[in-house]
C-alpha cells in the first residue's frame, strides 16, 4: 500500500477518533466514531484483511453505530454541559493518553522486528499447503481468497468457539430482553 494512503487513513482514524473524545454532543461523537471506524476498515484492507475490513464496516460502522445513534435519539441525550470540576477528569485522561503513547513509542523503539516492511504474500507457496480446490484456484490465480481462508479457519479450527459465541449472543439477547423489559406498573405510570 502506498504510504500516502496509509497516512491518509491513519489520519482519518486518529482525527475522528479524537473527535469521539472531544465532541460534546453524543451524536457528533457517534458520527466521528463511524468515520474513524471506516478509517480503520481501510487500514484493515490495506493489511490484506478484506473480510475483517468488511466486517468492521458492516458490524461496527453499520449495526453497532446505528444502535448507538438509535439509543441516543431514543433517550434524547443532551450534550454534556461544561462545568467546573470537570477539568480534572480531562486532565487525567490526557495524562494517561500521553503516558500510554510514550510507553507505546518506547516499546516500538525496542521492537526492532517491527521496523521491517510487511512481508510480501506468497500465493504460490500458500497454494501448495491448501487443500480446498476453490482456495487453491484463487491462490494460483494470484488473488488472496481472504474470506474463504477465514471461513475455512473458523469452521475447521474453531467450531466450538463459534458455538460459544452463539451462546454468548443468545445470552446477550436474553440479557437485553430482561434488562429492558417494561413491567406493567411502569407502563401504567
Amino acid at each position, binding site marked *: 500500500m502506498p504510504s500516502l494512503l496509509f497516512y491518509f487513513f491513519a489520519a482519518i482514524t486518529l482525527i475522528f477518533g479524537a473527535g469521539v473524545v472531544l465532541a460534546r454532543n453524543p451524536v457528533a461523537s457517534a458520527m466521528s466514531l463511524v468515520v474513524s471506524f471506516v478509517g480503520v476498515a481501510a487500514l484493515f484492507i490495506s493489511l490484506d484483511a478484506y473480510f475483517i475490513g468488511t466486517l468492521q464496516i458492516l458490524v461496527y460502522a453499520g449495526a453497532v453505530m446505528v444502535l448507538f445513534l438509535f439509543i441516543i435519539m431514543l433517550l434524547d441525550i443532551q450534550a454534556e454541559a461544561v462545568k467546573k470540576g470537570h477539568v480534572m477528569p480531562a486532565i487525567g*485522561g490526557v495524562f494517561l493518553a500521553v503516558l500510554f503513547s510514550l*510507553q507505546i513509542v518506547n516499546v516500538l523503539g525496542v521492537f526492532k522486528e517491527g521496523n521491517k516492511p510487511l512481508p510480501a504474500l506468497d500465493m504460490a507457496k500458500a497454494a501448495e499447503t491448501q487443500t480446498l480446490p476453490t482456495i487453491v484456484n484463487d491462490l494460483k490465480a494470484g488473488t488472496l481468497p481472504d474470506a474463504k481462508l477465514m471461513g475455512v479457519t473458523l469452521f475447521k479450527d474453531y467450531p466450538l468457539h463459534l458455538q460459544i459465541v452463539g451462546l454468548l449472543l443468545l445470552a446477550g439477547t436474553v440479557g437485553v430482553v430482561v434488562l429492558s423489559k417494561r413491567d406493567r406498573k411502569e407502563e401504567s405510570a
Partner: protein
Amino acid sequence: MNQQSAVSLLLLLPLFAAFAILVLNRYVGSFVSKVISVGSATICLITSCLLLGAEPTTGTLFQFIDVDGLHAGIGFILDQQSAGMMFIVTFIGLLVHVYSLGYMKEDESQSRFFGSLSMFMFSMTGIVLADNLLMMFVFWELVGLSSYLLIGHWFEKPSAAEAAKKAFLTNRIGDFGFMIGILVLFAASNGEIGFAALKESLSGGSTTGPLHDAPSWVMTLAALGLFMGAVGKSAQVPLHVWLPDAMEGPTPVSALIHAATMVAAGVYMLVRVSFILVESELAMQIISGIGGFTALFAALMAVQQNDIKRILAYSTLSQLGYMVMAVGLHAGEAGMFHLYTHAFFKALLFLGAGAVIYACHHEQDIWKMGGLRKQTPATFLTFAIGTLALMGLPGMSGFFSKEEILGAAYHECGWLFASASFTALLTSFYMTRCVVVAFFGKARTEAASHAHEAPMIMIAPLLLLSIFAIFSGYGFFSGRLQALVPHAGHAEGHLFVMGISIAAVVIGSGLAFFLYNGKDKDPLNIKLFANKFYIDEIYAVIVKVFQDRLAWIVTGLESIFVDGLVARLPAAIACRMGKTARAMQSGQLQGYTFALGLGLLLAIYLVVQVLPRH
C-alpha cells in the same frame, strides 16, 4: 528418741498445730486452738531441752528442690549454737504462749493469734536448724510471714495493718540482698548452698575449692548480701524503721518476735556464716560499723520516746546493733552470748511492759503512768530486774555479755569502743528514765491510779524470766547454752573495759534519775531524737519520689511509648492507609477508570522498565 526424729518433731509439731488451727478454726472454739498451740510449744520446749548438749550432728529430712544442679533439702544442723538458740526460742516461746493466754483473753480472734504463734514457732525452728542457705532463706521468709500476721493481728487498726505491711516490705528489701548473697555463693562455689559444703569449698584443701579461688570482690559481695538480709531482719540502720512500728502488734508478740528471737535471727545467721564474712575484711568493717552506728543511733532515739513499747523497741535496735557489731569485730560468740542474755531480759521487759499496759488499760504512754510500783509490785520488780540486766549492772546477765562485746570493740577498734561505751551510757539513761517515769512518782492519770496487777498466768512467766535475766550470764548457765568459748585475747584490758561499762551504767542511770525523778513532763526536749531523726519522713519522701512518682512516670511513658509505638502507631498507620485506600473507592466511575488506567500504566512501567533491571 533419736535426734532426727526429735528435729522432725520440733519442726513439724508447730506446723501441724498452725495448720490444725487454720483448718479447725471455724468449727471449734478458741479453747481447742489454745490447747493445741500451747501443747505444741510445751512439747517443743521439752524436746529442745533434751537436745541441749547432745552430740553435734547434721542430717537431711527431705529434699525440697531436687533437680540436676540444685539439691536443696530441708535438713538440720544440730550443734551447740543451734541447740542453744532452739532452747531460747522454745523456752521464751512457751512463756509467751502462756502469758498470752492471759493477755489475749478478751480478744475475739484468739485462734488466729495462737495459730500464727505456732506458725512462728515452726518458722523460727527452721531458721535455727537450717543446714543450708536456701533452707535458712525459706524459713527466713516464713518468720517474715508470721511476723506480718502477728503485727497485723488487729487488722482493723489502720496503723497495725500499715505496720505489718511495712515490716514485711522492709524485710523483703533485706531479703533481696540475702538472696543475692546466696546466689553469689552458689555461683562462686559452683553449686553449693550447704554450710558445710561451702566451708569445704572455701577451705580449698585436698579437693579444689572453687570458693577458695573466687575473686575477693565476690566474697565481699556475698558477705554484704548476706549481711543485708541480717540488716533487714535484725532491723539495722537503714532498714530499722519497721521494728518500732511493729510494736502495733500484741505485746507478747513484740516480746517473742520483735525482741527475743526473730530479730535476733539476723545475728544468728551472721554467726552461722561468719566463716564467709571473715573472708572479706571490708565486709567485716561495714558490718561492725553499721552495728555500732545502729546501737548508738537507736539509743539516741530511745532517749526521747514516750511510748513504753517504743522505748523498748529502740532499745532492742540498739542491742541488736551491739550484736551485729560484735560479729563484725570477729567476736560472733560474744554476739551470740549477748543474743541469749538479751533474749531473756528483753522478753522479760516486753512482757513486763505488757503487764503494765494491761494494768493501765492499754495505755502505753509512760507520761500517763507513774507510781505503778505500788499498784503492781510484781510487775515492777520483774521490770526492774530486766532493766538492770539491760543496763548491764554487774552481776546481771547483761553485764557479762555486753562487757564481752565492749572488750572485743576495745580490742579491735577504738572508735567503736567509744561509741559503744556511750551507747551503754545512753542505755542506762533511757531505761532508768522509763522506770522512773512509769513506776515512780505519782499516778498521772486516772487509769494509772487504778492500775491493778496482772493475773498470775502473766506474772508467772515474768518471774521465771527474771531468774534467767539475772543468771543467764553466768558460766554454769551460759555454758549449757553455748559452745563458743570466749576469746582468750579479750582478757587484755579486761579491767578497763569493765570499769568503763560500770561507769556508763552509773552515770547514765544517775543522770536519768536526777533528771526525771518526780517530773510530770519531760525536761529534755530534743525534737530530732523524738522524731527519730526524721528517718520515717525521709523514707516516705523517698518512697513517694522513687517509687510512686517513678511508677507514675513509667506508667505514663509505658502507655505513650511502648504501647504507642508497638500497638497504637501501627494501628494508626494501618487505619490511615485504610482510609486513604477507601477514599480511592469514591464511587466515581471516572475515578475508577482513571485508577484502572493508571494501574495499567504502572503495571507496564514496572514490568517493562523496572523489574527486568533487578
